[in-house]
């Protein structure tokens, strides 16, 4: 694991330097927040919309960084022989994965922080009721979605293909899992499909922690299980 911190820092700089990645992870979710808040108001059940939107969109950011940006980076590195050069060094595939994951999750942390600051400054967001639960749920969400992104990046041959597959996985998932529109407002049939996606437990757990409700241990266990299975599969499938 030598030099991991170094590699993470440099990969984060590279992600921020990429205008597409920076736009999608930072600006795009903020624009969605603004559009959604023009309708403002409260959700069915009486919760102010902003208190649902910020935690929801934090999952949107994690999903985008994990499922779209990360696999595209990894697949592009393979396509352009960046990985081939790394393979001739003592760096291990676990380290490459770890650094890619950490750098993209730091990008998502920036996106989440930006949403929180906008929410607090402009829309009267109430802070997370249970910060520890939110952090735990966010990290597990990042691990589970990130490991799926690593798996896509390990399997897909080119950066372009990875972007297409990443978007095809990401967009339907954010709509049905309640990361874009609040679960309360989704039709029952859509919500039951959404509950089968790996994004749903992250949305449920982060929102529960934010509102101060007890976080369902099942959602946390599902995320941990996804991380172990998809992460293991990604390491096995990885080609330089």
């Amino acid at each position, binding site marked *: 694991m*030598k*030099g991991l911190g*170094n*590699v993470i820092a*440099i990969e984060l*700089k*590279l992600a921020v*330097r*990429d205008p597409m990645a920076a736009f999608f992870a930072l600006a795009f979710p903020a624009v969605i927040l603004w559009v959604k808040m023009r309708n403002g108001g409260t959700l069915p059940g009486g919760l102010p919309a902003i208190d649902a939107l910020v935690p929801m969109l934090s999952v949107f950011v994690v999903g985008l960084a994990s499922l779209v940006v990360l696999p595209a980076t990894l697949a592009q*590195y393979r396509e*352009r*022989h*960046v990985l*081939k*050069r790394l*393979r*001739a*060094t*003592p*760096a*291990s595939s676990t380290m490459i994965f770890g650094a890619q994951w950490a750098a993209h999750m730091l990008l998502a942390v920036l996106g989440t922080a930006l949403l929180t600051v906008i929410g607090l400054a402009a829309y009267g967001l109430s802070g997370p009721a249970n910060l520890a639960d939110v952090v735990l749920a966010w990290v597990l969400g990042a691990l589970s979605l990130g490991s799926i992104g690593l798996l896509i990046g390990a399997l897909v041959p080119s950066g372009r293909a990875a972007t297409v597959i990443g978007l095809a996985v990401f967009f339907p998932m954010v709509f049905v899992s309640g990361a874009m529109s609040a679960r309360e407002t989704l039709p029952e049939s859509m919500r039951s499909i959404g509950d089968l996606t790996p994004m749903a437990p992250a949305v449920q757990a982060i929102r529960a922690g934010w509102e101060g409700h007890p976080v369902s241990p099942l959602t946390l266990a599902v995320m941990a299980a996804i991380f172990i299975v998809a992460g293991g599969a990604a390491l096995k499938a990885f080609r330089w």
Partner: protein
Amino acid sequence: MAVIEINGLQKSYRTHKALDSVTLTVERGEIFGILGPNGAGKTTVVECASGLRKPDGGTLRVLGMDPRTRRRELLQRIGAQLQEAALPDAIKVGEALQMYASFYDKPADWRALMQEWGLAEKKRARFAGLSGGWKQRLFIALALVGNPEVVFLDELTTGLDPDARRLTWGLIRDMRDRGVTVVLVTHFMDEAEALCDRIAVIDQGRVVHEGSPGELIDRSHADSLEDAYFTLIERTV
């Protein structure tokens, strides 16, 4: 003392036999050239020796280690510049050196290396914006950043203009003068003649000659390495 000992090395890709049986020895502190036509197996030899490919048969020792079983340990002590290798577009020269240095247990001082190889003025330049010559210079520096005992250079000067090529030759001699063993894969006879202490000519997956450039010229009763080379691989121009 031999730093690389290759005996009867074999490697096939699907139906294509890349290495039929390659045997050669590289001594410590020399510049060893590997010559041969396209598809002769030059790159495959380098990739097997630097642990990037697993040979099908034969024995292979680099610094006394088998790259198949002690790959990670070996990679701490060798450096490589590979054909077609790349870095991320947006990475800066200084960042690349710093990052690669962090992979090794006993790295060189990357800042000093950057100075020595004249890369300091490009420290903040992005990889994608570098010319071919600067990219190659960075790749040489990256091959040296782990303080290697052996460096593999695969077609280092292909695509460089004559000035940059001459400059690179000087850099390769500097490397040897510091005690690094250099394995140089090249297409250029003038390059091999000017730089290499010994060379192996590989054709159709076999070594057809191993010795100094002078020996090769004498043996072929030729005037230059280029003529000797064509005599040896039985092709005419």
